[in-house]
């Protein structure tokens, strides 16, 4: 079995991932997601 990734690497990466998420929120990506999600996505249902 290969040597396992130490837990501290994971613990260090979690805030980075959260920061990336926060950056997206700051840049207004939530509005894009909401706008897409509240309307019928014709492509998703096979009509687009």
């Amino acid at each position, binding site marked *: 079995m290969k040597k396992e990734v130490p837990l501290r690497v994971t613990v260090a990466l*979690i805030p980075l991932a959260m920061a990336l998420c926060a950056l997206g929120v700051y840049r207004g990506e939530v509005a894009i997601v909401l706008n897409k999600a509240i309307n019928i996505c014709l492509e998703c249902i*096979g009509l687009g």
Partner: protein
Amino acid sequence: MDKRKLVQAGWGILTNAYVKGFLPGAPVLYQGPLKQFCVPGLNCYSCPGALGSCPIGSMQAVFDARERGIAAYVIGYLATIGLFVGRFICGWLCVFGLIQELLYKIPTPKLEIPQKIDQPLRYLKYAILLVLVFALPFFYRSQFGAGEPFFCKYVCPVGTLEGGIPLVLLDSTLRSVLGWLFRWKFFLLVLCILSSIFVYRPFCKFLCPLGAFYGLFQKISLIRMRVDKGKCVGCGHCAAACKMKVDPCHNPNSNECIRCRECVKACPVHALSMGIGNKEMKREQEIAEKEIIV
């Protein structure tokens, strides 16, 4: 019904509980604030009952808005989940996963895909993630400057099952504009459903880009599978119990493991456990030790 199936079903109902969307007449999707958030599993946001957004669809929607660059919100969100639990979501909180598992319960002879075919096919989901979810929605623009959610449009059977079919049944206007694309996606859905009867979770094994994404975090996630080498007798019961065809004894944190814990249950000497990092779950170990003593 086991605990995991109850969690899967409960989660599916909870995240698709907008009953008003299923009422006859022109369907109205839920438009409240919860739709700002993505559910962790694959769940079409055009499902009439959906209360949250689909992470894969949302990612493509943000890529589509070219000036935004990377889809930081969704990628960061999925990476956070992946770093905490890896593919646990696939095993416990995915509605389409549950549907495939229930189909597999239909008593028929099951198909054993030869390893020579199975192993290369497992990489297909990574290609789908890279090409249909990341690259094409990011780079492609039509002559009118519009992008496309390639995975949702050409592949996703979940969209057809949860969104397409209910909406088409509810709305005669939508029924009147059905074309080749709907037929193609319907064909893919039927293929997925039929193959799920004979092969365990074929969509998850070979096609799901979300499973591919979470799989990248399996070896570094906070929650990991553990093998106590001191207890393991190499009987192979765990590998035999794993329907995702993982050998937990040799590769406990394989990208293919959906953390369903069937291997933990199957181990006769309780050498397997799921825990945080390098620490084994104390409670599980204590129970196991007591059982061995008895």
